[in-house]
């Protein structure tokens, strides 16, 4: 809330000098780049995600079961990791172009990696799983009857896709694409690695290179506006999902069995995406990390691991506890203020990390000034764990809240009444009834927050205390200096931990398969 407020307030506080410089030179480029990237990524990840979802959910072809879960694995790779792995592979001195030069003598025809196309491709490879997951779920739960009705009226599989499945799944697909758009708007690490200037990198630059908080706030407010627009659209599309829900679930009995060329085309497409989005970056990281393993696995590295783990653990415990209290409060007191509190505290997930960090800085630096005017040394306020944890709390509250709330929905109100009528007071009910039942939700919440905090780049980068490094920051620093081999090891560590929630997700989706 605070962060949001200060960004909004900044709209009326103009730092004219820096701003005019910004407006003239940087802002239009950044805004244009951001828009291009958003549109490109949305289209590419929608096409890839929906096609894969339909193939694995409705059709049958060799290796389908394997691909249906393996195609989710790229979710474990943060954008900034995928970005430098990709750049390292395909830039001029990378192995691919070197190989091509060996064959053809020249590789000047090869497209430049540091380009709009490169960022869009990498961004889509990182984000298509969102569309894939949601669209697949929609295809799976679509009434089988309607597809059968289409078949009985003579539709081929491909026609049935365009005339039945796709229109029916549209609200979900839109939801998935909007998620991709939000993530693209919020992304900092990927675009920074590609030196592709967007609003988020501009916020970062205004703050760290131009040292202008107002300018950063100005850019943040532009970004915030875009996010708000997307959120409004997202809410609308969610309303549409309710209308076209269907309770028929299982499809497994009758899939379209693809034959001949089609089946191999399906396999090839799935394999290609899987190769680019997961196998290649993982191998690249491994081949980078292996030779230097003995050297890099030193106390220095374990220092990063230790600080990352302790930070993530602390944030995880704190945020899970807050989310639990929030869910418990919402349950025992269903008044309007509580509902409002829940609503606002779970909105933070939509705020890009850069906006959030800048938004929290503004009020803090104001307090700073006051304290300094009063003669109290207060610079310790800036760049402390306190701000960091506040920012994480805002950003990841929704991540922690929703699994706990989902579990809470299983406890009917009469279970609380039953416990009371058997002599338990409020806190005893929490301890003896609620906690045992929502335990799994709390665990899920903790895992998700832990991994998210570990992967989080912009918030950590911008709010960390001086000299405090996490694995994510380390990866970013090394890769932005082009030290890819050295960045590979911490990146692999992040990936490995990132696989945990993806595995949980796969286990969950497997049940409906």
């Amino acid at each position, binding site marked *: 809330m605070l962060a949001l407020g200060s960004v909004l307030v900044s709209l009326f506080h103009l730092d004219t000098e820096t701003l005019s410089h910004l407006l003239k030179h940087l802002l239009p480029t950044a805004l244009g780049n951001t828009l291009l990237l958003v549109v490109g990524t949305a289209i590419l990840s929608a096409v890839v995600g929906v096609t894969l979802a339909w193939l694995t959910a409705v059709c049958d072809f060799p290796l389908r079961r394997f691909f249906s879960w393996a195609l989710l694995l790229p979710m474990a790779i943060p954008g900034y990791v995928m970005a430098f792995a990709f750049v390292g592979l395909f830039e001029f001195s990378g192995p691919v172009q070197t190989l091509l030069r060996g064959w053809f003598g020249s590789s000047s025809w090869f497209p430049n990696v540091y380009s709009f196309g490169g960022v869009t491709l990498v961004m889509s490879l990182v984000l298509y799983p969102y569309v894939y997951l949601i669209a697949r779920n929609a295809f799976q739960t679509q009434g089988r009857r309607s597809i059968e009705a289409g078949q009985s009226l003579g539709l081929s599989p491909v026609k049935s896709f365009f005339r039945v499945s796709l229109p029916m799944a549209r609200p979900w697909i839109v939801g998935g694409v909007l998620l991709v758009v939000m993530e693209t708007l919020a992304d900092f690490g990927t675009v920074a690695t590609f030196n592709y200037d967007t609003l988020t990198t501009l916020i970062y630059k205004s703050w760290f290179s131009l040292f202008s908080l107002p300018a950063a706030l100005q850019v943040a407010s532009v970004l915030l506006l875009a996010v708000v627009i997307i959120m409004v659209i997202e809410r609308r599309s969610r309303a549409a999902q309710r209308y076209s829900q269907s309770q028929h679930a299982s499809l497994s009995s009758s899939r379209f069995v693809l034959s001949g060329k089609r089946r191999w085309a399906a396999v090839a497409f799935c394999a290609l995406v899987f190769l680019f989005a997961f196998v290649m970056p993982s191998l690249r990281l491994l081949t980078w990390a292996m030779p230097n393993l003995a050297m890099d696995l030193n106390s220095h590295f374990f220092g990063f691991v230790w600080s990352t783990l302790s930070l993530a653990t602390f944030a995880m415990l704190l945020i899970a506890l807050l989310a639990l209290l929030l869910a418990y409060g919402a349950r025992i007191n269903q008044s309007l203020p509580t509902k409002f509190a829940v609503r606002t505290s779970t909105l933070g997930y939509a705020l890009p990390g850069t906006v959030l960090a800048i938004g929290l800085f503004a009020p803090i630096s104001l307090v700073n000034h006051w304290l300094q005017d009063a003669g109290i040394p207060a610079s310790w306020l800036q760049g402390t764990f306190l701000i960091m944890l506040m920012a994480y709390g805002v950003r990841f509250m929704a991540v922690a809240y929703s699994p706990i709330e989902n579990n809470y929905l299983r406890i009917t109100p009469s*279970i609380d*009444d*039953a416990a009371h*009528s*058997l002599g338990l007071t409020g806190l005893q009910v929490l301890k003896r009834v609620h906690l045992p039942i929502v335990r799994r939700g709390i665990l899920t919440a903790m895992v998700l927050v832990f991994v998210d905090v570990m992967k989080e780049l912009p918030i950590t980068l911008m709010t960390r205390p001086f000299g405090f490094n996490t694995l994510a920051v380390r990866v970013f620093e090394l890769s932005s200096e082009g030290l890819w081999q050295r960045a590979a090891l911490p990146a692999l560590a992040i990936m490995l931990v990132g696989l945990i929630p993806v595995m949980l997700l796969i286990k969950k989706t497997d049940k409906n398969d």
Partner: protein
Amino acid sequence: MTNPIWLKVSDATVAFGSSHVLSGVSFELEKGEIGCLLGSSGCGKTTLLRSIAGFEKLTSGEIVINQQVLTGSGKHVPAEQRNVGMVFQDYALFPHLSVLKNVMFGLRENAQSKDKALGLIERVGLAGKENHMPHQLSGGEQQRVALARALAPEPVLLLLDEPFSNLDVSLRERLGHEVREILKETSTTALMVTHDQMEAFAIADKVGVMNGGQIEQWASAYDIYHCPNSLFVAGFVGQGSLIEGTLLDCGTVETVLGIFKQEESNCCAPSAGCDVGKKVKVLLRPDDIIHDDDSLLQGVVRKKAFRGAEFMYSLALPNGEHITCMVPSHHDHPVGEPIGIRMEVDHVVVFDH
């Protein structure tokens, strides 16, 4: 000999702003009695039950159990301190606890309480299933666990909220009788809420018919059926028809089907007064009308419904009025045929126009 008054509800009112969910409900239950609140949804019966349990606060009025004021004159003992047991419509078993742990939930954990819980589990017919989890049980079994759990702390009063509504009909009847047996055995005073009159009749000693936040009549099941005190109760409970009548004397009424006289012993006819010549409505239950082929009194079959053992005939009388009568099903008469009827009205119930 009557038992002491155990539960006393006086003038219970629950209002949200100007709309009254309960308005001035009063009734009493003796120790060991089973009461039942009968009514359609939205009549306030569940609110009344939840107020007695302590989940809802009364706007005004008083709830006293065993001479202890639980609600009233600004006092509201919280639910957890009332020792009032409750069986919920959805059973509300704790999903993370075994049958035994569920039943022991309201007890201190020690050896005696375990024995006690095991005894109760056996009494409700679930011996051998004490280590099952709730989701492994059928609906009827879950309901028995809920009953055992509520009885375990020996509550001063047991409340049952539509306890059988989620069960199929055959099971409902059997469980109903079992529950009554167990309650009587443990001499538990109980109050149940239901919308199913057969359930109320099968289990309860006293039935309260509720309508619009008020109790229309509080009496035994027999009296509710045969001597309803209002047109609403007459219509809500059982089947029947109303025909025109004229008072001849106190307790004597003349109708197109003859003259009915109220016997002294069959008390209950409400006060239609003794105004000779006053027009009234007379309630005729299907069992007041006997089919008799030799009778000169006739009605024409307008509608018929086959019920297995009997036919429910709707008959048109010569003056155009309709009555319903129940006839053994080997008397199969086609629609349009006049059939003979004989009147056997023990309880003359008349209402003002």
